[in-house]
C-alpha cells in the first residue's frame, strides 16, 4: 500500500514537471532557453515517472532496469543538449533580443569550428584557416 502511495506521488510530480517542460518549450523566447526547458524539466519529470514504475513493481530486476534508464537519461541529456546547442550557435541561430551577455561571441572560429580561449588564440586560429585556404 505504501509503495503504491509513493508511486502515485512520483507519477504526479513527474507529469507535472513534464507539463512545465511542454509549456517552457512553447513559451520561452529563443532556442537556447527552450533547450534549458527540455534538458532540465523534461529529464527531471521523465526520471520521476520511471522511478514511479521502479517503486511500484518493487522487484529487484525491474527496479534496476528502471534506475539504469534514469541514469542513462541523466547522462545523455546534457551531452545531447551541448552538441545541439553548439551546432545551433555555429549555425548562427539568433539569440533572444533580451540577452545580456554572450560570452561565446567571437570565440568560435566559424570556419574551422574551433573554440578559442583568448585573443591570441582567435588570431592564431584564423591564421591557420587562412593558411589552409591559401594552400588549397
Amino acid at each position, binding site marked *: 500500500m505504501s509503495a*503504491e*502511495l509513493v*508511486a*502515485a*506521488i512520483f*507519477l*504526479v510530480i*513527474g*507529469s*507535472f514537471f*513534464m*507539463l512545465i*517542460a*511542454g*509549456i517552457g*518549450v*512553447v513559451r520561452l523566447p529563443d*532556442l537556447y532557453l*527552450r*533547450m534549458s526547458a*527540455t534538458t532540465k524539466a*523534461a*529529464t527531471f*519529470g*521523465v526520471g520521476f*515517472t*520511471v522511478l*514511479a*514504475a521502479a517503486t*511500484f*513493481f518493487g*522487484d529487484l530486476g*525491474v527496479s534496476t*532496469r*528502471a534506475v*539504469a*534508464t534514469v541514469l*542513462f*537519461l541523466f547522462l*545523455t541529456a546534457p*551531452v*545531447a543538449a551541448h*552538441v*545541439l546547442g*553548439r*551546432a*545551433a550557435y*555555429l*549555425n548562427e*541561430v539568433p539569440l533572444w533580443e533580451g540577452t545580456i551577455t554572450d560570452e561565446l561571441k567571437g570565440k568560435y572560429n*566559424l570556419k574551422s*569550428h574551433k573554440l578559442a580561449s583568448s585573443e591570441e588564440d582567435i588570431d592564431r586560429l584564423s591564421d591557420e584557416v587562412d593558411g589552409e585556404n591559401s594552400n588549397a
Partner: protein
Amino acid sequence: MNYLEIAFWIATPLMSLSILLAVYRLVRGPTSADRAIALDLLANFGIGVIALISIVYQHAVFLDVAIVLALVAYLATVTFAYYIEKRLGQ
C-alpha cells in the same frame, strides 16, 4: 478509488497536454534546431508514457522498450546536431 487511480487521472491529462505542446513546437519551427529539440522532447515524453502504461497494465516488460527508446532518442539528437553543423558550409 485508490491512490494510483487518482494519480492516473491526474497524470494522463498532464502528459497528453505536454505532448501536444511539444508537437506545436515541432510543427511551428522556426529553425531545424528547434524541431530537433522538440523531437528529443517528444521521445523523452514517450519514455514517461511507457512508464505510465507499464504501471497501468502491470507489465514490467514495457520498461525494456523505454530503455531502447532512450538510446535511440539520444542517437537521433546527436545525428541531427551533426547534420545541422555540417550544413554550415553550404
